[in-house]
Structure formats: structure tokens, C-alpha cells
């Protein structure tokens, strides 16, 4: 990786002396208990390599750990070319701070991922985009401070200059209508006519919350994430079906029109009864059968909500939140 080599070159002089000491330390300590016995010292060289994988908040936290990490973080432009803002910073990120952060890329910003950054406005976005014409990934999911017009303006600016925008995510932004989507697509189309509806990865419902943007080098999702639902004609996330028999794609629709199983992403056929779950999410019958159930009400949690399980010390299995509350109330009543 180019990034790691650049950082390493910069650090080599400082690290020569401390490095040999530290590598012998870590060899010894990996055979012993690591944590308590090692005296705090300068950071391991691998920490400089990890910097490239950190979203913004963690990057800043690392920069405060010690002086050499601070220098590494602030002096390396390459770390600022891919900005990822998620919890806990997303709700605090204002236009001004965004400007400050993106200016460190010196105009060469490649990836901007702002997840649920509610305070960002159209003007803030526009300023960034005007100064960084080479952005090729722009992810703005649930940035509810933006409007479709603002998004269009940004996409237009990017397509005017260098056409480098390859990937756009805008689900969760309010009020996007078909016209807006068509306009945005036309800007994408200007660059690569064949790529309008082309997606290299099928969009699967049960993977929708995984941090795919980090692994996108190997599985790039080119284009726009939202589409027009074939049933309700609204603009939203439209999912592909992993079920082999759904190749005819008649179930390619939004989640409201065609419910999908939280575990396997398959469409839930209308004839099947929707089984009850403790978390309220949808599950297909197969997945419902396979998941462990609450000892009292016999409803399962999906994997996303598995930490809501209350384990009882006396028995196997678990109790769901609702039953647990009742159980505790019952116990309390017994002692009154």
C-alpha cells in the first residue's frame, strides 16, 4: 500500500532507535501477559499503518495520544483524502468544521462519507465540492439537512469539472422525487453512458447496515444507491433478492412494498404468515425456526438485536426484554 510506505519513510528516522527496542519488547511480551507488564513507550510502527483505516473521530483521538502520532496524523495528506464521519461525530459536524477538515486534503479529496450528519447544509456541501473537484465517492445517507436540489447542485458541479464522481449514496435525504433522480442520473450518464443502471454488487437487505464503504475497493458499487420502487414509484433503497428463484426480479422493490427477512434478505412471500419476533423485525419462516426463542413468549430476536437477550443464571436460553420486565415486576409483587 502506497500510504503505509509514505508514512513509514517519514517516520523512519525517529523510529530507528525506538523500533528495535520495541520489537524485542513485543516479542517477549506476546509470550507473557501483555497489558500490565510493559512500560508505556513510543507507539508501535503498526499504529501508523492503521491510521489510514480510521474514520475521522478515531483519527483525531489517535492524534491526541502522543506527539509522534499527532504529527503523523496532521502532516500526512494521504490520511485526509478519504473522510468518513459517523457516530459520534456525525451529529456535531457543522459546515464550518467540515470545511476545516476537508481543507486538509488540499483540493484532492477523493472520498467523502457523511453518515447522518444532520447539520450539514446544501451550502456547506457546495463549498466543499467546489474546492475538491476530484471526489469520486460521495456518500450522504441520512444527511437530513440537505435537500434534493442541493444534492443536484453538488453532483452538477462535480460533473462539470472532472467527471470523477463514480459513486453516490443519498438514501434518507428527504423528499427525493423521480425528477430529482432523473436529473442526477443524467449527470452520471454524461460520463459513462452504459453505467446508468449497472451495479456490480447486488444490494441486499440484510447487509444494509454493514460498513460496506470500507471494503469497496474490492467490491465497488458504482452509481447511485436509490432507485424507483417498481410497486409504489417512490424513490428509496430498492433491494435485490438473494433467493435463487427470484431471478425474474419481480420482487425488486423497496422495503415497505416487499418485506424482507432481516437475517437472509429474502423476500417474504405473501402466502407465508409473518411470524412474531421479539424485536419487531421481519423474519422468514426458515430463519424464524432456526433462531433461539425467548423462554416465556417463544419469540426470537434477530441477530441485530441479539444483545437484548436477558440470560437467566438458572437455565439455558434467554428471556426477551418485554418478558423480562414482566418477570421482574412479578418478582417485585411477590415480595410486597
Amino acid at each position, binding site marked *: 500500500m502506497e500510504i503505509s510506505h509514505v508514512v513509514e519513510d517519514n517516520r523512519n528516522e525517529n523510529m530507528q532507535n525506538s523500533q528495535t527496542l520495541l520489537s524485542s519488547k513485543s516479542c517477549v511480551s506476546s509470550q507473557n501477559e501483555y497489558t500490565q507488564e510493559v512500560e508505556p513507550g*513510543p507507539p508501535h510502527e503498526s499504529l501508523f499503518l492503521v491510521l489510514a483505516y480510521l474514520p475521522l473521530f478515531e483519527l483525531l483521538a489517535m492524534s491526541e495520544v502522543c506527539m509522534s502520532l499527532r504529527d503523523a496524523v496532521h502532516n500526512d495528506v494521504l490520511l485526509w483524502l478519504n473522510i468518513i464521519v459517523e457516530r459520534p461525530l456525525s451529529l456535531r459536524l457543522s459546515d464550518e468544521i467540515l470545511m476545516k477538515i476537508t481543507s486538509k486534503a488540499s483540493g484532492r479529496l477523493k472520498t467523502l462519507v457523511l453518515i447522518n450528519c444532520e447539520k450539514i447544509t446544501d451550502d456547506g456541501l457546495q463549498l466543499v465540492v467546489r474546492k475538491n473537484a476530484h471526489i469520486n465517492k460521495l456518500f450522504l445517507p441520512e444527511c437530513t439537512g440537505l435537500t434534493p436540489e442541493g444534492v443536484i447542485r453538488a453532483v452538477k458541479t462535480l460533473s462539470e469539472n472532472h467527471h470523477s464522481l463514480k459513486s453516490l449514496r443519498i438514501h434518507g435525504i428527504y423528499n427525493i422525487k423521480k425528477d430529482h433522480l432523473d436529473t442526477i442520473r443524467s449527470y452520471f450518464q454524461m460520463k459513462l453512458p452504459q453505467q446508468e443502471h449497472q451495479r456490480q454488487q447486488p444490494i441486499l437487505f440484510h447487509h444494509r447496515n454493514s460498513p460496506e464503504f470500507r471494503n469497496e475497493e474490492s467490491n465497488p458499487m458504482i452509481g447511485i444507491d436509490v432507485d424507483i420502487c417498481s410497486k409504489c414509484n417512490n424513490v428509496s433503497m430498492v433491494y435485490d433478492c438473494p433467493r435463487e428463484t427470484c431471478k425474474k426480479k419481480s420482487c425488486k422493490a423497496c422495503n415497505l412494498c416487499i418485506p424482507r427477512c432481516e437475517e437472509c434478505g429474502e423476500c417474504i412471500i405473501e402466502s407465508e404468515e409473518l411470524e412474531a419476533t421479539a424485536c419487531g423485525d421481519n423474519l422468514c419462516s426458515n430463519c424464524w425456526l432456526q433462531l433461539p426463542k425467548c423462554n416465556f413468549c417463544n419469540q426470537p430476536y434477530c441477530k441485530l438485536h441479539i444483545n437484548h437477550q436477558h440470560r437467566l443464571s438458572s437455565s439455558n436460553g434467554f428471556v426477551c426484554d418485554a418478558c423480562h420486565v414482566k418477570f421482574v415486576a412479578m418478582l417485585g409483587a411477590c415480595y410486597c
Partner: protein
Amino acid sequence: MSNTSENPKPSSSSAKMTLKTSDNELFEVEEAVAMKFCTVKQYFEDEKDSDVAARGSTTVIPLPNVHSAVLATLISYGKKLPQSNAVADNHEEEETKKKERKKYEQGLLKNLMPGELLDLISAANYLDFKEGLEFFNQALADHIQNKSVEYVRKFFGIKNDYEPHEEEKYREEYAWAFEGVDED
């Protein structure tokens, strides 16, 4: 054995090479896996393909910066990756392989001490093992996700060499980033 499904063309992947670590342990590795370590690949860059198998079986490649425990882990991770010479599987086989790999990865990470993880990253960097570097770096990044500065210091045993007033100033400058952070 799952090996037969992973290596449907046994003739091309039977070539093995020997790697020698800093503590003088020898590892015999299949060519397909060893070639994922680009540093090792470079060794054979000048040779023609037909010579590689012959050379591979006789040459011992020294890796003076890599400890045997670390190399063992990197090799076993390399084996689990999709091989470049494998025939494309159908969708189901791919899914099961992916699930297997995920399980293996989770098991691997659970038992890893921070020092070991750092050593793995260094070694993957030295060997230029792209997939390993990516995986372990991401694992480390995921681990320190949302953690406070103090946690990171303690976890990696890093000394805080800031002057107190400097640190104050720095925190003020980035106050918006650090306000209201939970302690782990």
C-alpha cells in the same frame, strides 16, 4: 477434505516454497499462497514460470523480520483466501466459503492480544501481503472504534509525551470532536 474443492487444479498449486523466519523455523508453503506475499513474489519475478516450481522447491527464502508465530498466522489466513487459480464456484459454494471464512476470521481475532495484532500488521507490511494488511488493519481500526484517547494509550502502552498545556490547547482546538465522549 475441503482441499480438493479449493484447489481443483492440483498440478499448478503443488509447487511449494520454503520460508525461513527470524527464529530459524522453516515453513513449507504452496506457491499460490506464497505468491500473495508480494515480497516473496519479487524473489521470483525475474525467473520464467517454468523455473519457479524447480526453484521454489530448492530455494529457501529468508524472512529475517518475521517471527514464526506471526508467519504461521499469516500463512493460515492466506490459505483461507480465495485462490487466484481456482475455478469460479457457483453462488452457493461461494456463500458457504464466505461464511466459513468469516467464522475463521472471528475465531482468529478473538484470541489475539494487541501486541500480536501489531506484529501481524508489521509483518504483513514487510511481506507486502495486501489482503492480510487490509484485514488486520481493519480489525484494529474496528477495535479502537469509538474508544477514548486514554483507552488507546493504555491498550497499546503508549506514553503521553504532550506537555500539559499543549494538550489543553490541542483539545480546545478540537473540542467539538471530543465533547461528551463516553469513557469506553
